[in-house]
């Protein structure tokens, strides 16, 4: 696939990548940097596969959508690996004033909640993206849901 075609293929997921990155690191600049770093890690790892893949023009609309989703999930895999580690090293994330309860959750819990409830990924897809085992994913979903609801029940503002 030509480089310009590959860029056209991934371009529509940029905003979604930013949304996930911001979930892991709630800071505009850090989230943008995380998108770039994850994208570069993906390009380096999958260079051969991308260059050897079929030409853009020969793919049907459905094939392009499937390919785009696969690429999106692949980039998210790298984002998880880099982002979760990085979020643990950053100390200034608590500047986030909106959605305090949500950003008070552990980065991995936030990530799993966003993938499931914002992007509607299945538990199996979240397993692939995060590298967690199924029961860990389910546990994080359960904990996140429980913590958010108990804060609401205690009358704390979201």
């Amino acid at each position, binding site marked *: 696939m*030509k480089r310009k075609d590959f860029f056209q293929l991934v371009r529509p997921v940029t905003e979604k990548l930013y949304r996930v990155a911001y979930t892991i690191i709630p800071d505009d600049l850090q989230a943008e940097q995380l998108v770039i770093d994850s994208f570069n890690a993906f390009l380096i790892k999958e260079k051969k596969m991308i260059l050897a893949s079929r030409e853009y023009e020969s793919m049907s609309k459905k094939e392009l959508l499937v390919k785009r989703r696969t690429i999106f999930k692949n980039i998210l895999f790298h984002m998880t690996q880099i982002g979760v580690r990085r979020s643990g090293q950053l100390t200034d994330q608590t500047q986030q004033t909106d959605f305090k309860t949500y950003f008070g959750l552990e980065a991995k819990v936030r990530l799993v909640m966003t993938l499931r409830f914002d992007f509607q990924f299945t538990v199996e897809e979240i397993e692939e993206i995060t590298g967690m085992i199924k029961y860990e994913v389910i546990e994080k979903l359960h904990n996140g849901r429980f913590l958010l*609801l108990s804060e609401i029940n205690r009358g704390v503002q979201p």
Partner: protein
Amino acid sequence: MMDMTKETKNINYQKKIISYIDGSLLPDERSEFEAFVRTNPEFENQLKKKEEELNLIKSLIPVAQISKDSLEALEAEMKVSVFNLLKDEPKGFMDRLSSAWEDFINR
């Protein structure tokens, strides 16, 4: 084999509500669950309550927005990465020429 009472059946399906909503039920279990919901109106109400709770949770999850300028800058940076990192090793003069031409027309 013992017949399952309606109550036991209800309890078994109640346990599956979260998995159903989570999307972690297997396709077979999912169809079985949906069939049970269709035939049990009281159970359908329980499921609705759980779904309302889920909508509340969704409202507590932020959807980050990126400004138009930042998005354009991010896309530009991604484009540079694509052109820099996806270069095939040129095998000869024609390869070098075609790579340089592609770089030129896409910048």
